[in-house]
């Protein structure tokens, strides 16, 4: 039995910023470090964590049957084919949203805590019941955002709610960073984002076409394409989560030619 399980909520406010992709890749990366990890799909409305992990066809039971005591937890957990330290607890059908209460989420997470080092909760978008249920069961949180004004605004809203609910630490992942656009000031700079959100930056993830390819294949990037730019970012985030002191990836090196411009950009504000 794992004693100090870390239960981490992966949330964003806005949809489509990369929560599910981060959950899947972080799950793989942590599992590869030898940590038993459960990923819980709390996005009952738009479940797709199973798809990203390529486990869709192996789901028999879901969190719903566990809660209704129609099956045991270990019957519902789907173990990953290649990374046996990683298991998925699939979301039930969307109608669960009608009756699910914060206490139900807590019950599920308490069960997972008995077996795993990490529990990652893939949170639905928005700040309504789905988010609140998932938050109730979490201890700490990772807020995912993009360098866009609307995504940052929504992340800020979510951070306010996490703070009032005493979730901590709350750390930031800035996803879909494009050094070229940042250099041209067509995108918010890293400073612009951290300035507003005032959170420690757990990591950056570069924009990477490979993410889309891997999503379609149902193989998270970190599983097979460890050398792609985004995969390195995900691996670093997992290591930092474990307390390793890894310097932030320098987008300059990932996209040579923008060196000086980008460095200058890190110091300017365009808000």
């Amino acid at each position, binding site marked *: 039995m794992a004693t100090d399980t870390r239960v981490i909520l992966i949330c964003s406010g806005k949809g489509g910023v990369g929560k599910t992709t981060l959950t899947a890749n972080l799950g793989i990366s942590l599992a590869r470090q030898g940590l038993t990890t459960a990923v819980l799909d709390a996005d009952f409305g738009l479940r797709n964590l199973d798809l990203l992990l390529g486990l869709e066809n192996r789901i028999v039971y879901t969190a719903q049957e566990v809660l209704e005591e129609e099956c045991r937890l270990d019957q519902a957990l789907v173990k990953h084919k290649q990374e046996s330290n990683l298991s998925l607890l699939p979301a039930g059908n969307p109608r669960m949203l009608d009756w699910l209460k914060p206490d139900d989420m807590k019950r599920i997470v308490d069960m997972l805590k008995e077996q795993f080092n990490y529990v990652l909760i893939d949170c639905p978008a928005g700040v309504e019941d789905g988010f609140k249920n998932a938050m109730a069961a979490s201890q700490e949180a990772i807020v995912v955002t993009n360098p866009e004004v609307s995504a940052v605004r929504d992340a800020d809203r979510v951070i306010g709610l996490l*703070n009032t609910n005493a979730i901590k630490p709350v750390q930031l992942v800035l996803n879909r960073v494009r050094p070229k656009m940042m250099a041209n000031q067509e995108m918010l700079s890293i400073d612009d984002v951290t300035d507003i959100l005032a959170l420690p930056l757990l990591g950056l993830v570069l924009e990477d076409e490979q993410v889309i390819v891997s999503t379609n294949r149902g193989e998270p990037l970190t599983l097979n394409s460890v050398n792609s730019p985004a995969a390195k970012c995900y691996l670093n985030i997992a290591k930092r989560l474990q307390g390793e002191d890894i310097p932030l990836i320098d987008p300059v090196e990932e996209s040579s030619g923008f060196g000086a411009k980008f460095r200058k950009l890190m110091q300017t504000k365009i808000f």
Partner: protein
Amino acid sequence: MNSIPQKIIVNIEDSKYLSWKLCLINKLKSLKSTNIEIDCKNLDLSCTDILEIISIAKENNCEIIGFCSTSLKTIVSSQSLGCKSQFIIENNSNETLKINEKSLTFSKTYFHQGTVRSGEYIESSGDLLILGDVNPGAKVSAEGNIIIWGRLLGIAHAGNKGNSQATISALQLRPVQLRIAKKVARGPKEKPQIGLAEQARIDSEEIIISPLETS
């Protein structure tokens, strides 16, 4: 081994002296080459006053390591000049508030500590004091003045029941929108000057923004 410099606190509000300036000069005469912290008590000092204190200290070979005060105006002034500043809320905070309020027209000050984030709304039926940033998407509103010890990037409405004397002050005033009484203005586009606190008020029917003068 004595790596922590000795700190001496100089209280510049002393009824023995006619003004804080005389008080400071006299007290510094007896101290040479020391690190001092200036306790401004409840004096309301402007940026000019703070600069003067710094230059008086220099003349007396003293190094100021910080200011403390129970007056928010003083703290905003010293903070905006980049000095280490500590806002003191006295134990008997009700009484302190009453003293400070004698000069103000409003009865209650609402304090909020921490960042006001997107979607959050804070309201006061008196003055409103925020120690932290007001982020884009957040809104703060008060019947009296609004003082933000941080950046104002969201929306602020001072004098929300019609008081057109109300002001909005912030270390950095770059809101989406400003309202004072019934007047509405959009925030300025140009970047703020670093290190100068700013204040918005109504002057001949227009909302104007100028560097904060507190006296």
